[in-house]
């Protein structure tokens, strides 16, 4: 099989600077189809910059970014329906009910109103929100709102889902439940996910691979998490410590 087709996200020698500040330096990173990859790093490590370059809202200073075979910046419209994002905050529109928020992406993609509504209801059921379809955001709890946000991202059936600290503002229990639910749904429907977080536990629990970014210096660590590693609490703890060390070195360098 062609390896180019397999890579849904590919960053080749990507650097990004804002004036004299180098945020990313010759970064090489890829995410394969169906993979859940966690991008870890302290504040200022460049996670959001990488995310924005993948979303196409930022252009790299040098290097090449490809998402589903397209340059996400210069070919912005070609990724319509192929990419969706779940943000740190739910970003639900307060005048739309849960189901109306969920169907928003589909309506933008030109799906008929009736089909969009049906698909939105189905996704709300999948994220365990049946019964809350007609509630407005202010009538939902924080966890429920984030579920709607995930349903909205999944509903357009994208090739790639970007999660930008999507669970970090929730309490520990809600965050864990939601992460597990999301990972289950993402694997069931073979979704490719890039998951940005600063919480090591979240990354180890959810992802198939972790990538640790160091401010201005590219990748500090990259590790695949297979079933064998996941089943070994000692090795998992070692990896946790290793990631924490790499992240703190990055943070020290940053200051």
């Amino acid at each position: 099989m062609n390896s180019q087709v397999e890579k849904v996200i590919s960053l080749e020698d990507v650097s990004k600077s804002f004036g004299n500040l180098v945020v990313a330096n010759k970064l090489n990173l890829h995410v394969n189809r169906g993979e859940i990859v966690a991008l870890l790093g302290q504040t200022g490590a460049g996670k959001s910059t990488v995310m924005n370059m993948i979303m196409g809202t930022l252009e790299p200073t040098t290097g090449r970014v490809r998402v589903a075979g397209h340059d996400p910046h210069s070919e912005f419209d070609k990724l319509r329906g192929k990419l969706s994002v779940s943000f740190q905050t739910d970003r639900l529109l307060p005048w739309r009910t849960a189901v109306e928020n969920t169907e928003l992406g589909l309506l933008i993609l030109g799906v008929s109103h009736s089909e969009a509504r049906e698909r939105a209801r189905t996704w709300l059921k999948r994220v365990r929100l049946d019964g809350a379809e007609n509630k407005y955001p202010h009538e939902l709890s924080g966890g429920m709102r984030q579920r709607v946000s995930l349903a909205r991202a999944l509903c357009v059936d994208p090739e790639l889902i970007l999660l930008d600290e999507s669970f970090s503002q929730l309490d520990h229990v809600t965050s864990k439940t939601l992460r597990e639910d999301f990972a289950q749904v993402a694997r069931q429907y073979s979704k490719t996910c890039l998951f940005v977080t600063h919480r090591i536990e979240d990354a180890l629990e959810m992802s198939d691979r972790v990538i640790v970014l160091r401010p201005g210096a590219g990748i500090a660590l990259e590790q695949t998490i297979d079933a064998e590693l996941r089943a070994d609490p000692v090795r998992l703890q070692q990896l946790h410590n290793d990631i924490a060390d790499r992240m703190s070195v990055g943070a020290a360098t940053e200051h």
Partner: protein
Amino acid sequence: MAPAVPKPVSAPPSAERARGEGVIPVLVVVAGLLVAMQIASFYLPPFVMPAPVTIFWATVEILKNEYMHIGVTALRLLVAVLFAMAFGVFLGIVMGIFPKIRPYIRALVIIDTGIPALSWMLLAIFWFGEPEVRIFFILAVILVPFYALSIFDGIRALPRDWVDMIESFRPQRWQVLRYLILPHIIPYVLTTTKSVIGYAVRMAIFSELIASAIGIGSRMSLAQSMFRIDSVLGWTVILVVLNLALQAALTALEKYLLKWRAEANVR
């Protein structure tokens, strides 16, 4: 297990009390005014202050015989406010989403707000022969800037997070307008309408007073020239009631259109 659905936010317990607090003071003030007018009517000649009962019968007479003028004024008001709303919203949106032409439209709107209403009224008489056009023009040029500036402010207040969210779906420009900007500015349109409606009624009456032979303003002018102060006060009562009715209608419309909005209950 599905997460528990929280109970809908219920009206704060103080809401009923607040309604009561709103109605009772109004009734007290109205009763006080009626008593003061009655007392004044004992000491002043009828062409200065007629008794409340005389004003009441003058009001009844107006409602029986001159209701057409109320309809004409209300229609003029409706047409002008709807036009000002549509055109003001259009200008506000253009200012909000086209930064290059924003300073020019903004300058035009600011200059308009600086021109006194009386100047527009006199100019309208010079420029237009048709009374309906004069009144429409006067109301439109006075009201459009309120909407334009308010909507522009509304678009500036649009949360960046929402824009990024909708942009992540790669929408076309009209879709951003349809799904984000227009619903977002509805509260601004309603608030502006509530703020200007009383002013619009006053301007409509002034315009009719000097630019038309029909409508409440012209009838008030006629009553004044015939020394019918009871009729002048009767028309005034009708205008106050009209204004209250418009405010109530707008509040009901706001409640319906903004049902999605959680009401904050500040102690």
